[in-house]
């Protein structure tokens, strides 16, 4: 069941190259999504969406020309190809011959989510609501969201690539508010993957329980300390620190524009020899995984930091061409309405051999940052800021009181250099990453990681 016939794709690429260009591509997509939420005890906002569209792109030298259109009709595709070609100045070229686009596979789906009755999805939300509320009388509000999506993708390019992918994702998220006296705290947790209904069907209440526990814990929180402190970052979602403070700076578009603090550091020792990090879009059923990227390049594991040395950036086709290397399968886009740019897939520190307890045990006074509410980084300088949504004091080698309002402020290069311990408990969490106006699913993860010293901005004086 193909979206665009290879013969039509060939005609579209011919039209796109009719006024020249080094490279042309047709990206076609059919999307179907369903989402539903529960708030205040009520199941609401069931939503069903279907979109079909395509994007035509021509690259000439360092310039990309593109256009997109809703639908896959022959007339529409040829019109957009013609319109894109208008911007190009050069001699007409012919594309290489195209075969049929065969789906990449690699991520098994046991139960197709769209085949599960909507009523069961509503029941899943109710079960989570009930579990969160049963965690304590102090739980005053629960919000649960479930979303599923299927994206069928086909990519044809003038170099003869014909590739397809069929991507199914599900995600469950729970947010909880707890109140005691005048104090109000929130906690959340999510579970998501490139997977079917089976991922959320197995003990969904665990997600609710964890969110509730986080909110309840924070009710006892003390003000966060301020100053330069050793920090142990939690596994799983703690990896957002690596994603933001290092990963974005390794994306080749930022590097080539010298808009990254990591530009010019390839081969340099940036961290202790026990630090290794990967971007891996091929990990089975992980949230940031796909069969191919959005340019048809198969996803793969790319070692970015090996034994402390920076060994690779993350490439899409256009940036790889410029550096005369192969694409690393990181050309991703939000939809057919966007141009692909180098993006992380699942980015994580490789596990070490320490235990989390050992990392914490050596700290006299510090911060244990389990989870972040979000973060921001300036890739050009590597400066970052993270809000700690769940954090604890470390006192005398032990995790003690929960803290509220802590912020981590620092610089990626400095933080990387300051990593002085990695545990053995790798975990990948599901997040969304925004860049250049596009949001894509991204897996973040790591084992417990210790940073010798970071600036903690707190509320305590």
């Amino acid at each position: 069941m193909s979206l665009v016939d290879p013969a039509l794709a060939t005609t579209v690429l011919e039209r796109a190259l009719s006024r020249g260009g080094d490279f042309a591509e047709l990206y076609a997509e059919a999307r179907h999504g369903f989402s539903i939420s529960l708030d205040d005890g009520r199941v609401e906002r069931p939503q069903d969406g279907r979109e079909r569209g395509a994007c035509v792109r021509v690259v000439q030298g360092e310039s990309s020309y593109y256009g997109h259109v809703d639908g896959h009709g022959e007339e529409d595709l040829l019109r957009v190809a013609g319109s894109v070609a208008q911007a190009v100045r050069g001699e007409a070229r012919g594309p290489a011959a195209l075969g049929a686009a065969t789906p990449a596979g690699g991520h098994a789906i046991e139960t197709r989510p769209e085949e599960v009755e909507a009523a069961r999805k509503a029941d899943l939300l109710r079960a989570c609501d009930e579990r969160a509320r049963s965690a304590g009388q102090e739980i005053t509000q629960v919000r649960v969201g479930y979303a599923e999506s299927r994206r069928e993708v086909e990519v044809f390019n003038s170099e003869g690539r014909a590739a397809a992918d069929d991507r199914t994702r599900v995600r469950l998220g729970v947010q909880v508010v707890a109140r005691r006296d005048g104090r109000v705290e929130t906690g959340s947790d999510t579970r998501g993957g490139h997977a079917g209904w089976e991922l959320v069907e197995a003990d969904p209440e665990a997600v609710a329980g964890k969110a509730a526990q986080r909110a309840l814990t924070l009710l006892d929180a003390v003000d966060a300390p301020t100053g330069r402190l050793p920090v142990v970052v939690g596994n799983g979602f703690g990896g957002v620190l690596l994603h933001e403070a290092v990963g974005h700076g390794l994306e080749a578009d930022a590097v080539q524009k010298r808009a990254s603090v990591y530009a010019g550091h390839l081969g340099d020792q940036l961290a202790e020899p026990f630090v290794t990090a990967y971007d891996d879009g091929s990990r089975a059923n992980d949230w940031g995984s796909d069969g191919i990227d959005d340019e048809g390049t198969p996803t793969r594991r790319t070692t970015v930091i090996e034994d402390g040395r920076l060994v690779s950036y993350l490439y899409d086709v256009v940036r790889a061409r410029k550096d005369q290397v192969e694409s690393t399968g990181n050309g991703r886009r939000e939809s057919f309405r966007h141009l692909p740019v180098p993006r992380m897939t699942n980015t994580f520190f490789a596990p070490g051999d320490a235990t989390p307890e050992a990392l914490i045990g050596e700290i006299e006074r510090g911060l244990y940052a389990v989870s972040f509410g979000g973060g921001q980084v300036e890739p050009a300088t590597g400066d970052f800021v993270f809000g700690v949504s769940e954090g604890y004091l470390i006192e005398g080698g032990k995790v003690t009181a929960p803290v509220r309002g802590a912020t981590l402020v620092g610089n990626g290069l400095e933080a990387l250099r300051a990593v002085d311990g990695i545990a053995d408990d790798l975990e990948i969490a599901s997040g969304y990453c925004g860049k250049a106006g596009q949001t894509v699913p991204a897996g973040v993860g790591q084992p417990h990681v210790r940073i010798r010293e970071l600036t903690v901005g707190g509320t305590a004086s």
Partner: protein
Amino acid sequence: MTLEDVARHGVEAAVAAGATDAEAWAEEAVSRRVRVYDGEVESLSDAGGRGVGVRAFVDGRSGYAYGTDLSEDGVRGVAAAARAAAEVADPDEYGGLPDEFGAAAVEGLASPELAGWSTERKVELTLAVERAARERPGVTQVENAVYSDAEGSVALANSRGFAGGYDATQAWAYASAFAGEGTDLMTGLGVGLGRDPGELDPEAIGAEAADRALALVGARQPESRRCPVVLDAFVAASFIGFIGSMLSADAVQRGRSLFADREGDEIADAALALADDATLADGPSSAPFDGEGSPSRRTPLIEGGRLLTFLFDARTARQAGRATTANATRGSYRAPPSVGTNNLVLEPGERDLEGLFADAGDGLYVTDVAGLHSGVNPVSGTFSVGASGRLLESGAPAGPVRELTIASDLVSMLKAVRAVGSEARWVPFGGSVKAPPILIGEMSVSGS
């Protein structure tokens, strides 16, 4: 089918499928985007899009569906999916279409000038933005110079007989410039917006990006202190946008706003006046009606420091026993309407920026904040966000600073406003906000 036909057909099809009430929002847009780098076009796009979203009500339950297929069958499929989705929702006694509809007269939403601009001229304008930034001595790089425009049409229809539509145009440009080298590289953003490219000043946009980066060169981490803080218009707008989202009646009714139960209270210094206004000719989010057909208006939110009202759509108004303020907003046809801000306008005061510096004396001038949305607890309002800017010494800008956090809580901050600046501007990120710089009497600044 015209866009209005699509909307009407969506409503009829939903009713035919068993909906007791229905509403359809159809839109189409063409847009152009130019990105230049190093004096060359990096990317250029020409795009068209259209779609329809249908909201179906069935005995107090509501469901939503959308699609890009605007053929008769396609729209019927969307309507049927909305009707089916409604089945699984729980009934909502306050749900349903608004009780009254209409369109306000809002002038100037679409500029006929836009159509007269060739792609070549738009590329020239973008190059001029980049050049203006690059030519400033000390600028080491212009990472991005981007021009974008859109020409869109919207049609809304519902089963109570409302049908309306409007056209709007937008043009905007921005640049991000770097100054300094290595880990001392500083970035600055310049931005401008209007209804057509003729309203953009490329030199001013490029120069703003350059000046913001240059002002930070050599920035160091300051010592921790408590001091007066001047927030520039960008930063003030970010905070105001966040506060606006907390004034949504939906956030209030769901217990997710620190302003719940504060209606009528003094929540800010008397100098502060804030309104939501969807009728301004130059407001990026202006429109004749909101996302469910309520006529647009100006709603004063804070006056003399007092919180006058929350922002309502039909549903939240019904629950509160009030009238809608026409704040049912839509990002696109891909989502049902939800309560949000239109254009937030912070009334300017009398002091120019130098005057605010003079009033601050020894303090901090903040020109950028990072992590606002993750750094603020929406329920308690406490926040701690990363910031950069300049120290103020005896009322004048002194050394640049970075890697610091400013912390307070939103209500304390609003009450500590000492003066509102006179120079207001539209800031298109974090919602659509028009704000001047503001002076906060005291905040906690943490550095080394």
